[in-house]
């Protein structure tokens, strides 16, 4: 922490504040690129977690949340603003971090800030002909302006790429075509069973070899972040379950932790234990489904049925305690919604040996299969440097040797009471991303086994006020979702609803990872690599 602070003091224009483990660096917009490249090169901030677009009513701005791989607990928030609301321009940092490319497109889509020298300034989620930028505070939500379209988005619009460059000190606008006239383009999705949702990939092929991929998002963009600005905090919790529905409990946990941190609320230890066990059960369920779907994409329907069969056991446990199967809606601010069912501990303890036995069977059934191995080994290589630059967190990043488990970096809830190891592999192939998920199930079972007998007695939730108002300020919370790092950024003005809430979706960077890992390989491997990254599209689109 001190080192970065010292180094930053050489920059005269930067205003540095320390806020717990976060270093807030505010710079004027002219010095944005200089500071960003200083942080990247001299201070080792090689992991760009997220770019948050902000509307401060009188000005627009961005917040770059940075972390570094050597000291991952330390965070840097780089902030800048521009007072030009008509034609806001900021420098692009896409050449410093590969993940910034998509994040900047998202900021442009939502707030209308254009990034100088960014090669692709199309909208990310909304249609190119959408009127207005929805996350601006003065956005006109009149449905007459943007009626439900009855025609598909024209290919012309999708392919025309505008950009804005700085030439001789003047911004110059230009457009180019994404694909050449004679390129052979295949559409995957939005309705395609192997894209795991409604993702639209436009793939340029040369014979069977992939030359270029252009992902199109927004087919399930529901505007959760804008809706949240009008909702109270307990209401927002219900939307977080529906972001990444396979790790809904964990997402909800993140928002609860963020609010509790802001309120300085003491959560009972019993609630921490229950939450942790629920998180790990969710992770197992998610990995089982991911495993089954990956097998199904390869043509093995049997494995899918086996995975779903084991998942049903977890669904039963959830249903008994929380009352629902998939959307458990169980975490609330201050604890959990109700106490665990009397049978909960017994059922979980029965489940652990069952799952261990079944995992062996899964390995026997599928991992050893020569056809499956032939399709997974030596395909879709991702190096550690690239994983860091792309922000590929979670099991996919750990398969490349990047130790990024938030449960280890910043132990939250009851993880500090459990002794577990972070599963790491080095090779970074599709097979490693596959096997790491099965190993993580074992590790999750270990965590649950250590916690389940030691759930302390006491209250299951702390008392909160009827109307929850967060104090003024910025709050940030990271958790480890089944797919990677899920972050919540809340900017509060002291009201009962947030001024701005931003979720870092781990899945968006996973789709970005698809591009370097698949270009140059066969088109059939695209399905395999996509399945091994295991993204969930509603989490990207939000």
């Amino acid at each position: 922490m001190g080192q970065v602070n010292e180094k930053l003091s050489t920059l005269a224009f930067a205003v540095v504040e320390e806020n717990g483990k976060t270093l807030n660096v505010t710079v004027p917009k002219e010095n944005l690129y200089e500071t960003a490249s200083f942080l990247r090169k001299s201070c080792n901030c090689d992991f760009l977690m997220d770019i948050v677009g902000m509307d401060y009513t009188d000005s627009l701005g961005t917040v770059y949340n940075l972390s570094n791989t050597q000291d991952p607990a330390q965070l840097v928030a780089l902030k800048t603003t521009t007072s030009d609301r008509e034609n806001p321009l900021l420098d692009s940092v896409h050449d410093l971090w590969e993940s910034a490319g998509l994040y900047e497109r998202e900021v442009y889509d939502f707030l209308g800030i254009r990034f100088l020298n960014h090669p692709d300034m199309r909208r990310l989620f909304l249609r190119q002909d959408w009127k207005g930028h929805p996350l601006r505070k003065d956005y006109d939500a009149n449905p007459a302006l943007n009626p439900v379209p009855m025609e598909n988005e024209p290919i012309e619009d999708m392919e025309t790429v505008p950009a804005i460059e700085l030439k001789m000190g003047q911004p110059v606008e230009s457009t180019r075509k994404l694909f050449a006239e004679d390129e052979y383009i295949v559409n995957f999705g939005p309705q395609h069973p192997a894209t795991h949702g409604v993702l639209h990939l436009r793939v340029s092929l040369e014979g069977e070899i992939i030359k270029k991929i252009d992902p199109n998002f927004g087919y399930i963009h529901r505007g959760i972040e804008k809706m949240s600005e009008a909702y109270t905090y307990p209401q927002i919790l219900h939307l977080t379950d529906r972001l990444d529905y396979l790790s809904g409990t964990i997402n909800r946990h993140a928002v609860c932790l963020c609010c509790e941190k802001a309120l300085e609320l003491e959560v009972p230890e019993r609630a921490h234990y229950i939450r942790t066990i629920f998180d790990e059960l969710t992770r197992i369920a998610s990995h089982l489904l991911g495993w089954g779907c990956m097998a199904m994409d390869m043509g093995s329907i049997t494995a899918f049925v086996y995975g779903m069969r084991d998942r049903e056991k977890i669904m039963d446990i959830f249903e008994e305690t929380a009352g629902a199967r998939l959307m458990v809606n169980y975490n609330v601010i201050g604890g959990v919604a109700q106490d665990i069912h009397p049978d909960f501990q017994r059922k979980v303890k029965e489940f652990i040996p069952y799952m261990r036995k079944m995992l062996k069977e899964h390995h026997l059934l599928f991992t050893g299969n020569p056809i499956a191995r032939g399709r997974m080994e030596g395909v879709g290589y991702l190096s550690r440097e690239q994983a860091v630059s792309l922000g590929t967190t979670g099991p996919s990043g750990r398969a490349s040797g990047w130790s990024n488990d938030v449960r280890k970096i910043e132990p939250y809830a009851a993880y500090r009471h459990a002794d577990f190891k972070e599963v790491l592999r080095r090779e970074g192939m599709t097979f490693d991303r596959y096997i790491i998920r099965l190993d993580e199930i074992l590790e999750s079972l270990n965590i649950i086994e250590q916690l389940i007998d030691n759930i302390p007695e006491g209250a299951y939730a702390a008392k909160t006020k009827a109307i929850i108002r967060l104090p003024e300020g910025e709050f940030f919370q990271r958790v480890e979702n089944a797919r990677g790092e899920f972050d919540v950024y809340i900017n509060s003005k002291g009201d009962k609803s947030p001024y701005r809430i931003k979720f870092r979706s781990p899945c968006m960077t996973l789709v970005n990872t698809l591009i370097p890992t698949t270009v140059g390989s066969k088109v059939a491997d695209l399905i395999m690599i996509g399945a091994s990254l295991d993204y969930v599209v509603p989490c990207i689109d939000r």
Partner: protein
Amino acid sequence: MEVKDIYIKNMKTGDFKENEYLEEYVKELKNNGVNIFISKIDDVINWGRSNSVWPLTFATSCCGIEFMCLGAARYDFARFGWEVTRNSPRQADVVFVCGTIVHKMAPVLKRLYDQMAEPKYVMAFGSCAISGGPFKSSYHTVMGVDEVIPVDVYIPGCPPRPDAMIYGMMQLARKIKMQEFFRLPLQPDMKPYLEAEQEELKEKEEVADGTSK
């Protein structure tokens, strides 16, 4: 109670709730009069159709996971002959709209529906597909799929349990059994759409005539 005529092997008539709309439907059909010979052939064809409905694999969000559970071992909709999920709309009989439909997705869904061959059915799964559900106040959500395509069965829930989905499937099976296969294009619920289409065609012709003159 005319609805008792419709025999569903897997469920008794008493287990279905709210049969009024079906009774009205049967009454209307009976009033119009049906050829006995054709109606017998209808019965045979509909028996076959209602027991081998092929759904389209179409899922946009959360409800899709429950749809997968429905296809897996525990709930297993293969018991009712619904298991042949098709990836191409041209081979599907029914589209399960699992999840929120947003502005960008609406034309895609409409095109999928248009590509399906008659007779085709739509089931709206979950509150998002019914009315926009939890995302009602969003700027980018379509407030129910019935704004885009006609819906036969609505299944409430967020997401509905697979049991509820099976109940919805049985409802659709009954509806299929009641239809007259040889007069399908004139089904009462199809009329407004056909009329609207014809009007559109007329308008287009008029415009074309105007420009040619």
